[in-house]
């Protein structure tokens, strides 16, 4: 494979990219904003939220910007009317899935789901809500998980496994019943693998995992995974 730069266009802007970079990475370099929720720099890509879908000329399919590598001559559209509408549907689906009530949420004002809904113009949820009622696990000394606010982006699972190396968190069940689980379905206070490092709370895009008695604006740290990754590579 050669290391020659790749030329392509994103939203009619001519851009140059290195081999093996994703559409999302290139767009970011050129200040083109593609909305994401599950993607986080420094962690593996998950491609679950489907917000970053883009169009590529010549294909009727949509491509997840976070995982699709750029190739020479690609003509990418990140913001067509269809994509805008689809992103609104995706956000609405996420908002309807569990009990998201911003006004009483610890993350109100510091929530990526809330911000994106605002940014992309979701002013109501056209689907019936599920009104889930999962039990709050607040037994840990300071870490709290409220699964009613979880959007299953799995950032916490990935940061726990890939950055912290603890693999305390994982998924259980499937489909709409999928849940973040601690060890083998333990309460957090009983976890034998959790190092209480708080990284899960730092990367959680909503108020699903948070640090009790801490200002959420101080807890959240989207750069933690990337920062540690870079430092460890030094």
């Amino acid at each position, binding site marked *: 494979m050669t290391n020659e730069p790749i030329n392509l266009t994103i939203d009619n802007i001519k851009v140059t990219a290195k081999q093996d970079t994703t559409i999302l990475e290139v767009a970011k370099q050129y200040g083109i904003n593609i909305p994401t929720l599950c993607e986080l720099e420094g962690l593996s890509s998950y491609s679950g939220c489907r917000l970053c879908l883009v169009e590529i000329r010549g294909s009727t399919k949509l491509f997840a910007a976070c995982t699709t590598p750029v190739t020479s001559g690609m003509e990418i559209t990140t913001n067509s009317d269809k994509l805008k509408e689809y992103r609104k549907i995706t956000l609405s689906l996420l*908002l309807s899935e569990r*009990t*998201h*009530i*911003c*006004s*009483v*949420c610890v993350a*109100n*004002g510091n929530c990526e789901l*809330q*911000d994106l*809904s*605002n*940014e992309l*113009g*979701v*002013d*109501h*949820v*056209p689907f*019936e*809500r599920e*009104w*889930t*009622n999962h039990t709050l696990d607040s037994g840990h000394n300071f870490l709290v998980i409220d699964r*009613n606010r979880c959007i299953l982006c799995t950032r916490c699972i990935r940061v726990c496994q890939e950055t912290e190396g603890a693999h305390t968190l994982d998924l259980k069940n499937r489909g709409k019943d999928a849940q973040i689980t601690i060890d083998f379905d333990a309460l957090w206070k009983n976890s034998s693998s959790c190092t209480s490092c708080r990284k899960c709370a730092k990367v959680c895009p909503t108020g699903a995992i948070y640090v009790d008695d801490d200002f959420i604006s101080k807890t959240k740290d989207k750069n933690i995974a990337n920062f540690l990754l870079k430092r460890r590579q030094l």
Partner: protein
Amino acid sequence: MDKNKKPTFATVWLSGCSGCHMSFLDLDEALIEIANKVQLVYSPLIDIKEFPEQVTITLVEGAIANEEQLSMIKKVRTRTSILVALGDCAVTGNVTALRNTEIDGDKKVLKRAFIETSDINPQIPNEVSKLLKKVYPLHEKIPVDYYIPGCPPSPENILYFLTELLAEKSPQVEKRTKFG
């Protein structure tokens, strides 16, 4: 809208904390400006009992939680040209709808409010309108023309919305406000 006649204007208060109305009142001096442009025909702020036959703009605060509110909002809808869901309760159900997370939430809230937390003579009153099994945001029961999310929406956003609407533009309030 008829240019010669001031558009009629109403506000409705369903199940909400009245915070959205407070926010509306917080328009302060801008209220005078609005008052010059519209004719206020119905509101919890004024003493008119029956919702008028023909209203141009109605702001609705609160979610639909009981049978009376359901029939009220249906009436309001048929009599209103532009119906606006004002605030998170009207838009999403918000705190009012928290009882939806419980099975038999309607019974549980009544029990909590009138029995468990009652100091004297605990009993569930039967003269109030029957609660619906679930609480609904407006658009699940009637068509809504505009949504102004927020808990409450800021006075600035309400003012922006009304000013644009009264100038016969289509306000794009969704980029300014957010849930919560």
